[in-house]
């Protein structure tokens, strides 16, 4: 029982990370119908920006919450800018092209970020400094949770609620919803579709960056190819929950995280990567709209 609860704790922690990344995927897909393959690499960049900031301000020397928050915020802002740049230079020109072209462009951007990262940072893994002193807490039944895991959960929740607030209760957020339903009608209503798209990319990238820093807290090894697998899995999570659906991304992320940890713990760790895709195939065959999604009829 202890083991199962422990795995559950681990699973929920990972799930919230996947949820943060999945949110970015789902928002971009909802608006542009584009799978942003480069999103996982923005997560990687977030970890690296956090790494360099932490080393620059010496956050590991005297760990305190202020410095940690600076590291997190600077990574988020930097990646927000990266997202804007990617959108402007790579995705905007192919907005009118076929879906396959956009997909290939996204793959190209992903490769560029990964190999550019190898060129700039070096291929060897770096070690993220300890900006928060590690402590364990004992829950019931001998299950332990570290304060890093608690921080991940807390920050994820805060960010998700912030996003929800933006989307549901601000004008820009409502404009985002409008554009995702019908860009033409939204434009006719006076919404600047370009600005909204840019804003969406920025938000998504900021969330991915936060995920990168949070993960680096707990698993300090970072390297330029670290975003590939989490990116793909987070995309599966978004599809699982219903792509284009924001609460769906959260649900999908949690399901993904728990499923993965349970498979690794009880079946075999070597199938860790495969479970994501098996889940994907199952959900696409059984309920393509996703757990919380709605079936949209294709109009001819």
């Amino acid at each position: 029982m202890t083991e199962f609860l422990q795995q559950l704790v681990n699973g929920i922690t990972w799930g919230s990370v996947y949820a943060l990344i999945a949110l970015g995927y789902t928002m971009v897909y909802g608006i542009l119908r584009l799978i942003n393959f480069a999103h996982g690499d923005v997560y990687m960049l977030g970890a690296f920006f956090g790494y360099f900031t932490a080393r620059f301000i010496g956050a590991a020397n005297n760990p305190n919450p202020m410095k940690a928050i600076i590291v997190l915020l600077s990574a988020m802002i930097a990646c927000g800018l990266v997202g804007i740049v990617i959108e402007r230079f790579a995705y905007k020109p192919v907005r009118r092209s076929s879906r396959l072209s956009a997909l290939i462009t996204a793959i190209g951007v992903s490769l560029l970020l990964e190999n550019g990262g190898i060129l700039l940072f070096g291929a060897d893994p770096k070690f993220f400094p300890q900006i928060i002193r590690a402590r364990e807490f004992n829950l019931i039944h001998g299950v332990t949770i570290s304060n890093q895991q608690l921080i991940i959960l807390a920050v994820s929740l805060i960010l998700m609620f912030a996003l929800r607030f933006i989307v549901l209760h601000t004008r820009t957020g409502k404009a985002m919803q409008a554009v995702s339903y019908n860009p033409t009608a939204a434009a006719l209503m006076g919404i600047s579709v370009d600005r909204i798209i840019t804003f969406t990319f920025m938000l998504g990238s900021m969330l991915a960056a936060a995920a990168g820093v949070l993960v680096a807290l707990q698993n300090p090894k970072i390297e330029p190819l670290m975003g590939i697998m989490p990116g793909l899995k987070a995309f599966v999570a978004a599809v699982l929950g219903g792509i284009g659906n924001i609460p769906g991304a959260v649900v999908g992320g949690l399901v993904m995280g728990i499923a993965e940890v349970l498979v690794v713990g009880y079946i075999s760790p070597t199938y860790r990567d495969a479970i994501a895709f098996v889940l994907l195939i199952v959900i696409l065959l059984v309920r393509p709209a996703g757990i919380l999604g709605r079936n949209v009829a294709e109009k001819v």
Partner: protein
Amino acid sequence: MTSRTGLRIALAAALLLAVLAAGCGGGGSQDELVVGEFGSLTGNEATFGTSTKDGVGAAMADLQASAGGKIGGLPVRVVVEDDQSKPEEAATVVQKLINQDRVISVIGEVASSRSLAAAPICQSASVPMISPSSTNPRVTQVGDYIFRMCFLDQFQGTVMARFAAQTLKLKKVAVLKDSKSDYSVGLAQFFTEAFTGLGGSIVTEQAYQSGDNDFRAQLTAIKGKKPDAIIVPGYYTEVGLIARQARELGLKQPLIGGDGWESEKLIEIGGDALNGCYYANHWALDAPDPKLQAFLKAYRDQFKGDPDAIGGLAYDAANVLFGALEKLYAQDPQAFKGLSSSRAGSAARTDAEKKLRDLIAATTNYGGVTGTITLDQNRNASKPAVVIEIKDGKKIFNSSFNP
């Protein structure tokens, strides 16, 4: 002619140029000894290739200092190629080194999978290949032109088992191996055989994959079985994280591993979690061997950092090669001339390669920085292994095991 056609002609021309450029690889104007070195400079295991390159670079620097970079009057030139951590790329680059650069010998690779891809090509071209640290037994079985500078995993597994059972007196252990690495799987298997042969028992065997970041699931399963120690025969990048997460989960047992732990980054990644852990290795940096210390000093000056065992083994591989070349020049200068770049492709070259191979195979009691090396009849290095202990964040020598 439409612009479309013009575009196509331009592209065809570019294609042609590319082919020609690829063709103009070899052919230096002066006589020299060309040695090839290949490794993974990019891709997943980029640090292996860099370490190999630096180790060979250190040996070249020594040669430069002692003999002006020449052996037998001919300057030595090392051509370095990147195989991107891919086996088929390893085969391609070795083919290029042999056919375009006309190398007389090849140093590489670290990963057994890439050595296995390249070895048949070297064997059929009769070019000696020295692998610094591929530990899979099959590598040298490819043919008599393939050598390795390190011990086999069979021996290393036995060393770890002897240390665990006899020195630390452990009765039951858990094994956590890297299923994506032939090295780790093989080492785990050899350890298990040896350990159970010495009366110990394995309470559970778990696996992860290199590149994984999270091992809590496996460690939680191990925790439930209460072993005396955890055997982690993997690479340093994951070992550091495993140690951290184990301590976070409340596992206090020592971790024991193999030479995959060897890296200057190990303590940086693992931190205090690694105190009280042990691993088998080719060398101990604090051993009082004067040759080793001299090498370390020169290396630190040249590369501003400590070498890992791969770098040390590459250094020894290059020096063994240089030593054999010098011996050939001393014993048979006429045959030695066959190795110069101007004689590539001639019968003299083939004859010289054979003599070179024989000299490499006869390496006995060579005092390398990674230990005293003797190549046995299977062209594997018979040398002692050391066990390193990690104490207060430092690696210190614990004990030595002879074959």
